[in-house]
């Protein structure tokens, strides 16, 4: 089973990924699944009603707002970074947390590299499927590289202007 790095209460640790990442053409396996937005819109209701943990995969060009009414029932929203330099998912994450009030797991998948750790955490992403073999320790070091931040974001870090207080 692939491993994830998860962030909880300020600590990064390795975690087993119990969700099966299901492509649209795959036969639906048992247990927790992550589906595309399209497949979720078709089959999600039934699965969730049956008590199954369900997550949704959001591509960079899909709007997280489309999930607004389903969010309370979702176990995971997995945001796809098709390339590390495609930054749309940062906005998606910020919107999920700040505007849509989603409190469940927001996971970064795709071209997910250690150098992006700080930005991801600040946008409210709390689970990472690194594409570069990063360890939780490496991830924590990268995310904690800066002693200060200038702007308010999704995380609880006080911006410089509050530190200056």
């Amino acid at each position, binding site marked *: 089973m692939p491993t994830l790095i998860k962030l909880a209460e300020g600590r990064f640790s390795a975690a087993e990924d119990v969700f099966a990442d299901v492509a649209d053409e795959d036969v639906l396996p048992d247990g927790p699944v992550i589906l595309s937005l399209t497949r979720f819109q078709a089959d999600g209701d039934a699965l969730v009603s049956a008590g199954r943990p369900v997550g949704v995969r959001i591509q960079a060009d899909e709007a997280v707002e489309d999930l607004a009414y389903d969010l309370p029932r979702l176990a995971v929203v997995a945001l796809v970074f098709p390339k590390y330099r495609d930054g749309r998912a940062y906005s998606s994450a910020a919107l999920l947390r700040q505007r849509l009030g989603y409190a469940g797991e927001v996971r970064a998948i795709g071209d997910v590299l250690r150098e992006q750790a700080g930005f991801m955490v600040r946008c409210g992403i709390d689970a990472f499927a690194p594409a570069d073999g990063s360890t939780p320790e490496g991830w924590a070091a990268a995310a904690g590289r800066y002693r*200060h931040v200038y702007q308010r974001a999704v995380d609880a870090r006080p911006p410089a202007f509050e530190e200056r207080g």
Partner: protein
Amino acid sequence: MYRYDAIDRELVADRAAEFRGQVARRLAGELTEDQFKPLRLMNGLYLQLHAYMLRVAIPYGSLDSRQLRRLAHIARTWDQGYGHFTTRQNIQFNWIKLADTPDILDELARVDLHAIQTSGNCIRNVTADPYAGATAEEIDDPRVWSEVIRQWSTLHPEFSYLPRKFKFAVTAAAKDRTAARVHDIGLVLRRARDGSLGFEVIVGGGQGRTPYVGPTIREHLPVDSLLSYLQAILRVYNRHGRRDNIYKARIKILVAALGKDEFARQVEEEWSKIEASQADLPDTELARIRAAFTPLDFQTLPARSDAFEAARTASPALARFARNNVKPHKKAGYAIVEVSLKAPGATPGDASADQMDLVADLAERYSLDDVRVTHEQNLVLPHVKLDDLPTVHAALESAGLATPNINLISDIIACPGLDYCALANARAIPIAQAIARRFEDADRAELIGELKIKISGCINACGHHHVGNIGILGVDKKGEEFYQLSLGGSGQEDASLAQILGPGMSADKVPDAIEALVGAYLAVRQGEERFLDTVRRLGMAPFKEAVYADAH
């Protein structure tokens, strides 16, 4: 100067430490060039034709003497003894070794300088009016707002992987010295009829292969809503800007595709959903930033300086310098002095380490420790007493820095072109040098008056050729360097894009063609009309005729 506090310093120090680690991993072979490239580009380190180029940020073009001396030191120690001031008010060092860059960043950090966000698809160094804090024209100090944007955009978690690079210009004067209308976002501070301070927000201007003069999407944004509104613009762009084709990825393409009104509507809709208290700076922080700009110790002086008047009567050179390079200051008895980096035969924007040291000394002694870089690639001593002008002029002259040509025909912007740049089709610097030499006669240059020539070595338009009164673009014609001329551009408040004049020509023909354009202008100009005004009045025909007559 905005004075860094411990927090600002630690952030820059952390960045330098981070890059040191990344360079070490690269040199040890733990990172491939492919993996390293995005990291070095986050720190302004480009690979050019012959060496690495390091671009150092000069926020809103503002330096003190200590910083300028450090730049001179870097030029001397790690480069070939000079640096290149750019149209983004930054400085570039062209001959850098990768292994030296961590030490250079440490040296920079010691004087509160860095290379953060001088490259990459993020919010780049914010440029502002180089006369900020000195000109009577301004209604507020644009540096305060530029610093607000600098802090907000530094390592912004949501906006560091935009579709493409993103450039701001901020001005508060009616006369635009920042080219605000050809930036991704141009902000022009204005007072409304009720006296309130606001920004005219211009979005989607730009140069490159598809130039646009940016439309205004909001006439009057209250200043305290700046950051929430910028967040809305950047979020719309981050989500909807094109990422499939880098040539169509700038915000200008999105604004043009949606249309100005629809783009503005999307921004306003997003803005209405942003919680202002989360996004805008508290008033206390705005006040702190304003107060962190060192208050300047101006003296009360008479408006007229007898010493200066006598010296200028005695010295035609000083008189000429005063006519062209000295601009009015808001305080009686002071002047703004432009230091030309466009001596005939020089590379536009280059300054040697010795020249930088000299300007730093002059700034310290005669300009309240303040130096500016202009987007037209000159330096400015913004607060010189009229009484000191003769001394300052003599010192500049001794270092080849007193060329009296600001805004004249030899005050040329040129990109690095084929001499340095891997993307170039043609050289730009030698063309600038040839034109400057051709028009070396200062009397004649003054007679011609304001005429802005801008040269780019390829369609990326780093040399601003689209907004040149005369634009010159290097193209590749079957392996030969060719130059295409265009007329009628302006990057100022009356911004317009230059129109192509006719077929391209080889390098040796360019000075003659400029000569012909100038001749045609002088023959028909009316009164005080600038070259640009004449082109606007008469159109291309007389100029085309003058340049291509031989070809008939």
